[in-house]
């Protein structure tokens, strides 16, 4: 037990999968349930799902590869800005090309920055990723032509018309909710597949022992750069959705706080399996709303909450769930 608590949970026990599936179905059912303040809750849940995609993209680096990036919001924000600038002044941009384009912008930025940062290790990697993200932040913050400190509006929500069929209307909050849910599920399934592919196993090997990986003939630099680029692109998907949902981008989206929140979400939920990142994102945002309603000193409560989780559930909330199941299993057998 003590040995396994240090090892990231990769393969999810059956019970956890069922729990996730039930949770996912419950989430999908929310828009159908008549309730007071429906729009507010839909919007909040959509935002949680967007952040869950963002957290999963970071988990590919942090939990799977062992690279703690303190600048991951840069790619999130860049894709948001990409949507803002790709949207014409008097017409919406098509979802079908602007989403891939925004993700590509984020991935390209990650490729260029990754080229420099991925050769560093440990604390240096953390500092250099943060430094690059701060450069991107100030590039937008100080440049009036890029929106400056006030940011920029996304004039229209993306248009999702397919060959003249306008069934997907993103102005509709329910439709936007389901689009986000579909992307969340898609990204999750893709990353789970990736985790157990030869590429994913090599990334796990790099986390466990990069030196040995090189002696075994793996060009670990290329693997890390690919992971960094891919994680940037997926963060871009989340950033795009964020900008599309709020209709507004500002430098805070790529700021230090955004990057730090993502790290906390991943730690909170449990690293290295993507399901934990989703759980962490929802839990983090939920606690954030809860604490903000209670007091303006919510950060104090948030900090204490995260400390407690780290101390009592080193594998995160999902790990806690697994432990309960393991204990129940041991009692029964």
């Amino acid at each position, binding site marked *: 037990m003590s040995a396994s608590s240090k090892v990231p949970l990769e393969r999810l026990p059956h019970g956890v999968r069922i729990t996730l599936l039930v949770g996912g179905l419950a989430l999908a059912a929310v828009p159908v349930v008549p309730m007071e303040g429906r729009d507010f809750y839909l919007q909040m849940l959509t935002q949680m799902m967007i952040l869950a995609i963002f957290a999963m993209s970071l988990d590919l680096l942090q939990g799977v590869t062992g690279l703690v990036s303190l600048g991951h919001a840069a790619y999130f924000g860049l894709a948001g800005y990409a949507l803002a600038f790709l949207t014409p002044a008097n017409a919406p941009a098509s979802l079908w090309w602007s989403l891939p384009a925004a993700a590509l912008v984020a991935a390209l930025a990650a490729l260029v920055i990754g080229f420099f940062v991925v050769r560093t290790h440990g604390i240096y990697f953390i500092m250099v990723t943060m430094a690059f993200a701060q450069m991107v932040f100030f590039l937008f913050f100080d440049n009036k032509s890029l929106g400056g400190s006030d940011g920029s509006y996304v004039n229209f929500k993306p248009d999702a018309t397919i060959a003249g069929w306008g069934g997907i209307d993103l102005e509709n909050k329910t439709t936007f909710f389901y689009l986000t849910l579909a992307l969340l599920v898609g990204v999750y399934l893709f990353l789970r597949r990736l985790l157990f592919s030869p590429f994913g196993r090599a990334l796990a*090997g790099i986390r*466990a022992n990069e030196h040995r990986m090189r*002696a075994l003939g793996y060009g670990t630099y290329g693997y890390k750069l690919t992971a960094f680029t891919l994680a940037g692109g997926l963060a871009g998907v989340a950033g795009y959705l964020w900008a599309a949902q709020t209709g507004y981008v500002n430098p805070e989206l790529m700021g230090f706080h955004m990057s730090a929140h993502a790290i906390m979400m991943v730690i909170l939920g449990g690293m290295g399996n993507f399901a934990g990142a989703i759980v962490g994102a929802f839990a983090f945002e939920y606690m954030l709303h809860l604490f903000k309603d209670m007091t303006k000193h919510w950060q104090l409560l948030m900090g204490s909450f995260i400390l407690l989780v780290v101390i009592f559930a080193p594998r995160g909330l999902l790990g806690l769930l697994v432990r309960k199941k393991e204990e129940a299993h041991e009692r029964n057998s």
Partner: protein
Amino acid sequence: MSATPEVLLSARGLTKRFGGLAAVNGVDLDLWCDRIHAVIGPNGAGKSTLTNLLSGDIEPTAGRVAIGGIDTTHKSPEAKSQLGLGRSYQKTNIFTSFTVWDNVRLAAQSRRRLASWNVAQWFTSADSQAATNESCERAIELAGLTPRARAIAATISHGEQRQLEIAMTLATEPQVLLLDEPLAGMGQAEAERMVELLLKLKKGHAMCLVEHDMDAVFALADQLTVMVNGQVIASGTPGDVRSDAAVQAAYLGEEHQ
């Protein structure tokens, strides 16, 4: 042994200085196919530094290393591995949180030379690659770890971890084997099994064996090089080296009193 044995690895004038200290100083070394070349010497003689120089873990200050005729002096460890060099470590260097199988499977996977950006491989399952699995199974069986394949590497015995270290090295299908104290910390029975395995591996490999266990060295070695203070003081057949006066004074004498 064939009439003209093939040199698979050759080092010339290999030197590594750490500040003023020459940890390895002007070492020449040849590894021949089907032969075991043992390197012995007292602690601090530079044996491990030599291994690290040959494997590319550290870069030499001077000198050259060639693998199969290709100059690899400044090549990375991964490039050397792909050229057919496999090494094991003195201090067990495995993926402790993985199972024995996953350790060796990852080693075997390296031979597929997959590009990380090859998108098609992202959608395949690492567990269902037939060639990798076969190679993995072979290496585990050769190292005698088949019954332990599903155990977490951190939980197996020290001797088994040493066997795992060898299995991982073998799974990369190397022609040149650099083994840094494979018998370190092993019990009698385990050590005997390892000696047997190394004899089995002699055919088809050029092996460099750094080892402290003199019984094993004299049982295995075809060539013997003795290092003291970073320099080679004698090199030849075990019989020649054993009768070398300098070696007796510097090393064998004091160790074997």
